[in-house]
Protein backbone atom coordinates (compact mmCIF):
# COMPACT_ATOMS: atom_id res chain seq x y z
CA UNK A 1 0.00 0.00 0.00
CA UNK A 2 1.42 3.38 -1.04
CA UNK A 3 1.45 5.96 1.73
CA UNK A 4 1.95 9.46 0.39
CA UNK A 5 4.11 11.84 2.37
CA UNK A 6 3.10 15.41 1.57
CA UNK A 7 5.09 18.62 1.85
CA UNK A 8 6.08 19.30 5.48
CA UNK A 9 5.07 15.80 6.46
CA UNK A 10 6.59 12.47 7.44
CA UNK A 11 5.59 8.85 7.83
CA UNK A 12 7.35 6.14 9.84
CA UNK A 13 6.29 2.53 9.58
CA UNK A 14 7.09 -1.08 10.43
CA UNK A 15 4.23 -2.43 8.31
CA UNK A 16 5.84 -4.69 5.67
CA UNK A 17 2.98 -3.93 3.27
CA UNK A 18 3.70 -0.22 3.28
CA UNK A 19 5.56 1.77 0.66
CA UNK A 20 6.28 5.36 1.66
CA UNK A 21 6.42 7.83 -1.23
CA UNK A 22 6.98 11.55 -1.51
CA UNK A 23 6.48 13.29 -4.83
CA UNK A 24 8.04 16.27 -6.48
CA UNK A 25 10.80 17.51 -4.24
CA UNK A 26 11.84 20.85 -5.72
CA UNK A 27 14.10 22.73 -3.35
CA UNK A 28 12.56 20.71 -0.52
CA UNK A 29 14.52 17.74 0.78
CA UNK A 30 13.37 14.17 1.32
CA UNK A 31 15.15 12.07 3.92
CA UNK A 32 14.64 8.34 3.93
CA UNK A 33 15.87 6.20 6.85
CA UNK A 34 15.68 2.43 7.21
CA UNK A 35 16.86 -0.03 9.84
CA UNK A 36 17.13 -3.47 8.16
CA UNK A 37 17.29 -5.39 11.44
CA UNK A 38 13.90 -4.31 12.79
CA UNK A 39 12.53 -3.38 9.33
CA UNK A 40 11.51 0.10 10.38
CA UNK A 41 11.63 2.94 7.89
CA UNK A 42 10.66 6.58 7.67
CA UNK A 43 10.38 9.34 5.10
CA UNK A 44 10.41 13.09 5.77
CA UNK A 45 9.64 15.87 3.26
CA UNK A 46 10.71 19.21 4.72
CA UNK A 47 10.60 22.58 2.99
CA UNK A 48 12.70 25.18 4.79
CA UNK A 49 16.02 25.10 6.65
CA UNK A 50 15.42 26.91 9.90
CA UNK A 51 12.45 26.89 12.32
CA UNK A 52 13.50 30.24 13.77
CA UNK A 53 11.67 31.76 10.78
CA UNK A 54 8.41 31.57 12.74
CA UNK A 55 8.03 29.94 16.14
CA UNK A 56 4.27 29.53 15.79
CA UNK A 57 4.54 27.75 12.47
CA UNK A 58 7.35 25.56 13.81
CA UNK A 59 5.19 24.59 16.78
CA UNK A 60 2.16 23.83 14.60
CA UNK A 61 4.16 22.03 11.94
CA UNK A 62 7.70 21.08 13.00
CA UNK A 63 8.01 18.90 9.89
CA UNK A 64 8.19 22.02 7.74
CA UNK A 65 11.75 22.75 8.86
CA UNK A 66 15.04 20.81 8.76
CA UNK A 67 16.07 21.53 12.33
CA UNK A 68 12.76 20.37 13.85
CA UNK A 69 11.67 17.83 11.22
CA UNK A 70 14.80 15.67 11.12
CA UNK A 71 14.92 15.03 14.90
CA UNK A 72 11.19 14.20 14.77
CA UNK A 73 11.81 11.64 12.00
CA UNK A 74 14.62 9.87 13.87
CA UNK A 75 12.73 9.94 17.17
CA UNK A 76 9.65 8.35 15.60
CA UNK A 77 11.84 5.59 14.12
CA UNK A 78 13.58 4.99 17.47
CA UNK A 79 10.17 4.54 19.07
CA UNK A 80 9.57 1.61 16.71
CA UNK A 81 12.90 0.06 17.67
CA UNK A 82 15.23 1.46 15.03
CA UNK A 83 18.80 2.30 15.96
CA UNK A 84 20.88 5.09 14.43
CA UNK A 85 24.01 2.99 13.82
CA UNK A 86 22.06 0.46 11.70
CA UNK A 87 20.16 2.94 9.60
CA UNK A 88 20.55 3.44 5.87
CA UNK A 89 20.17 7.18 5.33
CA UNK A 90 19.27 8.69 1.97
CA UNK A 91 19.01 12.40 1.18
CA UNK A 92 17.42 13.69 -2.05
CA UNK A 93 16.10 17.02 -3.35
CA UNK A 94 17.46 20.50 -2.68
CA UNK A 95 17.27 21.56 -6.31
CA UNK A 96 17.64 25.14 -7.39
CA UNK A 97 16.41 27.38 -10.16
CA UNK A 98 19.00 28.38 -12.78
CA UNK A 99 21.12 31.38 -11.72
CA UNK A 100 19.87 31.13 -8.14
CA UNK A 101 23.43 31.48 -6.89
CA UNK A 102 23.19 33.68 -3.86
CA UNK A 103 19.89 35.29 -2.95
CA UNK A 104 17.17 32.93 -1.75
CA UNK A 105 18.89 29.67 -2.60
CA UNK A 106 16.62 27.54 -0.42
CA UNK A 107 17.71 24.23 -1.99
CA UNK A 108 21.32 24.80 -1.06
CA UNK A 109 20.45 26.06 2.42
CA UNK A 110 18.21 23.07 3.03
CA UNK A 111 21.09 20.79 2.14
CA UNK A 112 23.48 22.69 4.38
CA UNK A 113 21.02 22.39 7.26
CA UNK A 114 20.89 18.60 6.79
CA UNK A 115 24.68 18.30 6.70
CA UNK A 116 25.12 20.46 9.77
CA UNK A 117 22.62 18.45 11.78
CA UNK A 118 23.98 15.09 10.62
CA UNK A 119 27.58 16.11 11.33
CA UNK A 120 26.63 17.25 14.83
CA UNK A 121 24.78 13.99 15.51
CA UNK A 122 27.25 11.68 13.77
CA UNK A 123 24.82 10.45 11.12
CA UNK A 124 26.39 9.12 7.93
CA UNK A 125 24.64 9.60 4.59
CA UNK A 126 24.63 6.37 2.54
CA UNK A 127 23.29 7.87 -0.67
CA UNK A 128 22.45 11.37 -1.82
CA UNK A 129 21.06 13.01 -4.93
CA UNK A 130 21.00 16.70 -4.16
CA UNK A 131 21.05 19.95 -6.14
CA UNK A 132 20.78 20.53 -9.87
CA UNK A 133 17.57 21.86 -11.37
CA UNK A 134 15.55 18.65 -11.47
CA UNK A 135 12.69 17.63 -9.27
CA UNK A 136 12.75 14.25 -7.57
CA UNK A 137 10.37 11.63 -6.19
CA UNK A 138 11.48 8.96 -3.74
CA UNK A 139 9.82 5.81 -2.43
CA UNK A 140 10.81 3.44 0.33
CA UNK A 141 9.54 -0.13 0.67
CA UNK A 142 9.25 -1.08 4.32
CA UNK A 143 9.43 -4.86 3.80
CA UNK A 144 13.10 -4.78 2.74
CA UNK A 145 14.23 -1.16 2.64
CA UNK A 146 14.22 -1.07 -1.17
CA UNK A 147 14.41 2.55 -2.29
CA UNK A 148 13.62 4.05 -5.70
CA UNK A 149 14.36 7.51 -7.03
CA UNK A 150 12.71 9.25 -9.95
CA UNK A 151 14.08 12.47 -11.44
CA UNK A 152 12.28 14.86 -13.82
CA UNK A 153 10.95 13.08 -16.87
CA UNK A 154 12.67 9.75 -16.10
CA UNK A 155 11.49 6.40 -14.74
CA UNK A 156 12.01 5.14 -11.17
CA UNK A 157 15.48 3.69 -10.57
CA UNK A 158 16.46 1.54 -7.63
CA UNK A 159 19.17 3.09 -5.47
Amino acid at each position, binding site marked *: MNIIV*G*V*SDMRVSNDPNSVLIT*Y*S*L*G*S*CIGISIYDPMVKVGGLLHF*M*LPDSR*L*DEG*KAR*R*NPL*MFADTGIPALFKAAYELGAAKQRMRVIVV*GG*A*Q*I*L*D*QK*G*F*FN*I*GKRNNMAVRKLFWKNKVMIDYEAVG*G*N*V*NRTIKLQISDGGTWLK*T*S*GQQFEKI
Partner: protein
Amino acid sequence: MIDITSIIKGIDKLKPIPQVTQKVMAIANDPMSSATDLADIIQYDPALTANILRVCNSAFFGLAKRIDSIHQAVAYLGMDQVVGMAMLNLGSENLKQAQQGYDLREGELWKYSVLSAFMARELADNKKQKGKHLIFTGALLKDIGKTVLSEYVGNYFDDIEKAIADRNITFRDAEKLIIGIDHAAVGAMVAEKWNFSGKMVDIIRNHHLGAGWPEDDIDLATVYVADTLCMIMGIGVGSDGLAYRFHPAVVKKLHLNDIDLQMLMASFCEKFHELEKLLTCVQGISV
Protein backbone atom coordinates in the same frame (compact mmCIF):
# COMPACT_ATOMS: atom_id res chain seq x y z
CA MET B 1 11.80 21.17 -36.10
CA ILE B 2 8.10 20.46 -36.04
CA ASP B 3 5.40 21.92 -38.23
CA ILE B 4 4.01 24.72 -36.06
CA THR B 5 0.66 24.61 -37.84
CA SER B 6 -0.04 21.20 -36.28
CA ILE B 7 0.55 22.74 -32.84
CA ILE B 8 -1.75 25.63 -33.66
CA LYS B 9 -4.43 23.12 -34.62
CA GLY B 10 -4.09 21.77 -31.09
CA ILE B 11 -5.17 25.18 -29.79
CA ASP B 12 -8.38 24.87 -31.77
CA LYS B 13 -9.14 21.60 -29.97
CA LEU B 14 -9.34 23.36 -26.58
CA LYS B 15 -12.82 23.95 -25.28
CA PRO B 16 -13.99 27.43 -26.27
CA ILE B 17 -14.30 30.02 -23.55
CA PRO B 18 -17.98 30.20 -22.51
CA GLN B 19 -19.85 33.37 -23.33
CA VAL B 20 -20.56 34.11 -19.69
CA THR B 21 -16.83 33.95 -18.88
CA GLN B 22 -16.10 36.37 -21.71
CA LYS B 23 -18.69 38.75 -20.28
CA VAL B 24 -17.21 38.39 -16.79
CA MET B 25 -13.77 39.26 -18.19
CA ALA B 26 -15.18 42.28 -20.02
CA ILE B 27 -16.77 43.57 -16.82
CA ALA B 28 -13.59 42.95 -14.84
CA ASN B 29 -11.59 44.96 -17.38
CA ASP B 30 -14.07 47.85 -17.47
CA PRO B 31 -13.30 50.44 -14.75
CA MET B 32 -16.84 51.83 -15.09
CA SER B 33 -18.55 48.54 -14.28
CA SER B 34 -20.01 47.76 -10.86
CA ALA B 35 -20.34 44.74 -8.61
CA THR B 36 -24.03 44.60 -9.51
CA ASP B 37 -23.17 44.39 -13.22
CA LEU B 38 -21.02 41.36 -12.46
CA ALA B 39 -23.67 39.63 -10.36
CA ASP B 40 -26.32 40.38 -13.00
CA ILE B 41 -24.28 38.57 -15.64
CA ILE B 42 -23.44 35.53 -13.54
CA GLN B 43 -26.91 34.98 -12.09
CA TYR B 44 -28.28 33.89 -15.48
CA ASP B 45 -25.83 31.00 -15.60
CA PRO B 46 -27.10 28.53 -12.98
CA ALA B 47 -24.14 26.15 -13.24
CA LEU B 48 -21.58 28.92 -12.80
CA THR B 49 -23.61 30.46 -9.98
CA ALA B 50 -23.84 27.14 -8.15
CA ASN B 51 -20.12 26.54 -8.48
CA ILE B 52 -19.19 30.00 -7.30
CA LEU B 53 -21.46 29.63 -4.26
CA ARG B 54 -19.91 26.23 -3.52
CA VAL B 55 -16.43 27.72 -3.61
CA CYS B 56 -17.51 30.73 -1.52
CA ASN B 57 -18.85 28.44 1.17
CA SER B 58 -15.82 26.12 1.13
CA ALA B 59 -13.48 25.76 4.08
CA PHE B 60 -10.78 27.59 2.12
CA PHE B 61 -12.54 30.90 2.62
CA GLY B 62 -13.74 30.02 6.09
CA LEU B 63 -16.55 32.59 6.02
CA ALA B 64 -18.59 32.98 9.19
CA LYS B 65 -21.71 33.64 7.17
CA ARG B 66 -23.25 31.36 4.54
CA ILE B 67 -23.50 32.93 1.08
CA ASP B 68 -26.75 32.09 -0.70
CA SER B 69 -26.83 34.33 -3.76
CA ILE B 70 -24.38 35.64 -6.32
CA HIS B 71 -25.22 39.25 -5.38
CA GLN B 72 -24.39 38.41 -1.78
CA ALA B 73 -21.14 36.75 -2.89
CA VAL B 74 -20.06 39.85 -4.81
CA ALA B 75 -21.03 42.14 -1.94
CA TYR B 76 -19.31 40.00 0.66
CA LEU B 77 -16.14 38.94 -1.16
CA GLY B 78 -15.75 41.73 -3.70
CA MET B 79 -15.56 41.72 -7.48
CA ASP B 80 -11.96 40.50 -7.69
CA GLN B 81 -12.67 37.33 -5.75
CA VAL B 82 -15.81 36.47 -7.69
CA VAL B 83 -14.11 37.10 -11.04
CA GLY B 84 -11.36 34.78 -9.81
CA MET B 85 -13.91 32.09 -9.03
CA ALA B 86 -15.38 32.34 -12.52
CA MET B 87 -11.84 31.90 -13.85
CA LEU B 88 -11.36 28.84 -11.63
CA ASN B 89 -14.25 27.29 -13.53
CA LEU B 90 -12.55 27.99 -16.84
CA GLY B 91 -9.19 26.71 -15.60
CA SER B 92 -10.57 23.49 -14.18
CA GLU B 93 -12.03 22.53 -17.54
CA ASN B 94 -8.69 22.83 -19.27
CA LEU B 95 -5.97 22.17 -16.69
CA LYS B 96 -7.16 19.13 -14.76
CA GLN B 97 -6.03 16.42 -17.14
CA ALA B 98 -2.68 14.65 -16.85
CA GLN B 99 0.01 16.19 -19.05
CA GLN B 100 2.16 13.17 -19.74
CA GLY B 101 4.70 15.00 -21.87
CA TYR B 102 5.49 17.16 -18.86
CA ASP B 103 5.32 14.15 -16.53
CA LEU B 104 2.39 15.67 -14.64
CA ARG B 105 -0.22 13.34 -13.16
CA GLU B 106 -3.93 14.13 -13.35
CA GLY B 107 -4.72 17.22 -11.30
CA GLU B 108 -1.09 18.28 -10.73
CA LEU B 109 -1.05 21.16 -13.22
CA TRP B 110 -4.44 22.28 -11.92
CA LYS B 111 -3.40 22.21 -8.28
CA TYR B 112 -0.23 24.10 -9.04
CA SER B 113 -2.13 26.69 -11.11
CA VAL B 114 -4.65 27.34 -8.35
CA LEU B 115 -1.98 27.57 -5.66
CA SER B 116 0.08 29.89 -7.81
CA ALA B 117 -2.98 32.08 -8.46
CA PHE B 118 -3.86 32.42 -4.77
CA MET B 119 -0.22 33.09 -3.91
CA ALA B 120 -0.02 35.81 -6.57
CA ARG B 121 -3.18 37.38 -5.20
CA GLU B 122 -1.84 37.32 -1.66
CA LEU B 123 1.31 39.07 -2.87
CA ALA B 124 -0.85 41.63 -4.65
CA ASP B 125 -3.00 42.07 -1.52
CA ASN B 126 0.07 42.59 0.65
CA LYS B 127 1.40 45.23 -1.71
CA LYS B 128 -2.05 46.79 -2.15
CA GLN B 129 -1.78 46.40 -5.92
CA LYS B 130 -4.71 47.15 -8.20
CA GLY B 131 -6.01 44.81 -10.88
CA LYS B 132 -5.88 41.74 -8.70
CA HIS B 133 -8.23 39.77 -10.95
CA LEU B 134 -5.71 40.20 -13.75
CA ILE B 135 -2.90 38.88 -11.57
CA PHE B 136 -5.04 35.99 -10.31
CA THR B 137 -6.21 34.96 -13.77
CA GLY B 138 -2.77 35.41 -15.30
CA ALA B 139 -1.22 33.20 -12.63
CA LEU B 140 -4.02 30.65 -12.98
CA LEU B 141 -3.85 30.27 -16.76
CA LYS B 142 -0.20 31.06 -17.50
CA ASP B 143 0.64 27.41 -18.27
CA ILE B 144 -2.37 26.71 -20.46
CA GLY B 145 0.12 26.33 -23.32
CA LYS B 146 1.47 23.17 -21.68
CA THR B 147 -1.82 21.40 -22.38
CA VAL B 148 -1.24 21.94 -26.11
CA LEU B 149 2.51 21.36 -26.16
CA SER B 150 2.61 18.35 -23.83
CA GLU B 151 2.55 15.71 -26.55
CA TYR B 152 5.46 17.36 -28.41
CA VAL B 153 7.51 17.81 -25.24
CA GLY B 154 6.99 14.11 -24.47
CA ASN B 155 8.14 13.08 -27.96
CA TYR B 156 11.24 15.28 -27.91
CA PHE B 157 12.07 15.20 -24.19
CA ASP B 158 15.54 13.66 -24.63
CA ASP B 159 16.53 16.38 -27.11
CA ILE B 160 15.14 19.10 -24.85
CA GLU B 161 17.00 17.70 -21.84
CA LYS B 162 20.23 17.51 -23.83
CA ALA B 163 19.86 21.09 -25.05
CA ILE B 164 19.42 22.31 -21.46
CA ALA B 165 22.51 20.45 -20.30
CA ASP B 166 24.72 21.36 -23.29
CA ARG B 167 23.75 25.00 -23.63
CA ASN B 168 22.76 25.97 -20.07
CA ILE B 169 19.43 27.24 -21.35
CA THR B 170 16.01 27.17 -19.71
CA PHE B 171 13.39 24.53 -20.42
CA ARG B 172 11.35 27.15 -22.23
CA ASP B 173 14.29 28.11 -24.47
CA ALA B 174 14.92 24.43 -25.14
CA GLU B 175 11.27 23.95 -26.16
CA LYS B 176 11.66 26.79 -28.62
CA LEU B 177 14.93 25.42 -29.95
CA ILE B 178 13.77 21.84 -30.41
CA ILE B 179 10.03 22.16 -31.09
CA GLY B 180 10.05 25.62 -32.63
CA ILE B 181 7.72 27.22 -30.09
CA ASP B 182 7.52 27.30 -26.28
CA HIS B 183 4.60 26.76 -23.90
CA ALA B 184 4.40 30.44 -22.92
CA ALA B 185 4.06 31.52 -26.56
CA VAL B 186 1.42 28.83 -27.15
CA GLY B 187 -0.37 30.00 -23.98
CA ALA B 188 -0.42 33.56 -25.33
CA MET B 189 -1.99 32.27 -28.56
CA VAL B 190 -4.68 30.51 -26.51
CA ALA B 191 -5.31 33.72 -24.56
CA GLU B 192 -5.68 35.63 -27.83
CA LYS B 193 -8.09 33.05 -29.15
CA TRP B 194 -10.12 33.45 -25.97
CA ASN B 195 -10.18 37.24 -26.51
CA PHE B 196 -8.31 37.98 -23.32
CA SER B 197 -7.00 41.52 -22.88
CA GLY B 198 -3.61 42.44 -24.35
CA LYS B 199 -2.25 42.75 -20.82
CA MET B 200 -3.33 39.21 -19.96
CA VAL B 201 -1.81 37.88 -23.17
CA ASP B 202 1.46 39.62 -22.27
CA ILE B 203 1.47 38.15 -18.74
CA ILE B 204 1.00 34.65 -20.11
CA ARG B 205 3.62 35.15 -22.83
CA ASN B 206 6.22 36.62 -20.47
CA HIS B 207 5.58 34.72 -17.25
CA HIS B 208 9.09 33.22 -17.27
CA LEU B 209 10.56 36.66 -17.99
CA GLY B 210 12.38 35.77 -21.17
CA ALA B 211 14.32 38.31 -23.22
CA GLY B 212 12.59 41.65 -23.64
CA TRP B 213 10.09 41.37 -20.81
CA PRO B 214 8.65 44.68 -19.62
CA GLU B 215 10.67 45.36 -16.48
CA ASP B 216 8.26 47.90 -15.04
CA ASP B 217 5.28 45.56 -15.12
CA ILE B 218 4.52 44.91 -11.44
CA ASP B 219 1.61 42.58 -12.28
CA LEU B 220 3.90 40.38 -14.33
CA ALA B 221 6.55 40.48 -11.60
CA THR B 222 3.95 39.30 -9.08
CA VAL B 223 2.87 36.38 -11.26
CA TYR B 224 6.54 35.48 -11.81
CA VAL B 225 7.39 35.47 -8.09
CA ALA B 226 4.39 33.28 -7.22
CA ASP B 227 5.32 30.87 -10.02
CA THR B 228 8.93 30.72 -8.83
CA LEU B 229 7.93 29.99 -5.23
CA CYS B 230 5.63 27.17 -6.36
CA MET B 231 8.51 25.69 -8.35
CA ILE B 232 10.82 25.89 -5.35
CA MET B 233 8.14 24.17 -3.25
CA GLY B 234 7.91 21.47 -5.90
CA ILE B 235 4.22 22.09 -6.53
CA GLY B 236 3.20 20.91 -9.98
CA VAL B 237 6.80 20.57 -11.08
CA GLY B 238 7.08 18.09 -13.90
CA SER B 239 9.73 17.07 -16.38
CA ASP B 240 10.74 20.72 -16.77
CA GLY B 241 11.96 20.65 -13.19
CA LEU B 242 13.36 23.96 -12.01
CA ALA B 243 15.08 24.69 -15.31
CA TYR B 244 14.03 28.33 -15.46
CA ARG B 245 15.94 31.49 -14.62
CA PHE B 246 15.82 33.23 -11.28
CA HIS B 247 15.65 37.03 -11.43
CA PRO B 248 16.50 38.54 -8.03
CA ALA B 249 15.93 42.04 -9.41
CA VAL B 250 12.22 41.28 -9.83
CA VAL B 251 11.92 40.13 -6.25
CA LYS B 252 13.59 43.31 -5.09
CA LYS B 253 11.31 45.37 -7.33
CA LEU B 254 8.40 44.06 -5.28
CA HIS B 255 10.31 45.01 -2.11
CA LEU B 256 10.45 41.43 -0.93
CA ASN B 257 13.32 40.00 1.04
CA ASP B 258 14.43 36.50 1.83
CA ILE B 259 12.28 36.28 4.98
CA ASP B 260 9.15 37.52 3.16
CA LEU B 261 9.52 34.79 0.57
CA GLN B 262 10.09 32.04 3.12
CA MET B 263 7.10 33.25 5.15
CA LEU B 264 4.91 33.17 2.06
CA MET B 265 5.99 29.59 1.34
CA ALA B 266 5.36 28.59 4.95
CA SER B 267 1.91 30.23 5.02
CA PHE B 268 0.81 28.53 1.84
CA CYS B 269 2.15 25.21 3.03
CA GLU B 270 -0.19 25.53 5.99
CA LYS B 271 -3.09 26.21 3.61
CA PHE B 272 -2.57 23.05 1.55
CA HIS B 273 -5.35 21.21 3.32
CA GLU B 274 -7.88 23.98 2.71
CA LEU B 275 -6.69 24.23 -0.86
CA GLU B 276 -7.37 20.53 -1.39
CA LYS B 277 -10.93 21.13 -0.17
CA LEU B 278 -11.29 24.07 -2.54
CA LEU B 279 -10.12 21.95 -5.46
CA THR B 280 -12.71 19.33 -4.54
CA CYS B 281 -15.37 22.04 -4.71
CA VAL B 282 -14.37 23.11 -8.19
CA GLN B 283 -13.92 19.60 -9.58
CA GLY B 284 -16.49 17.94 -11.78
CA ILE B 285 -18.03 21.16 -12.95
CA SER B 286 -19.18 22.12 -16.38
CA VAL B 287 -19.09 25.61 -17.73
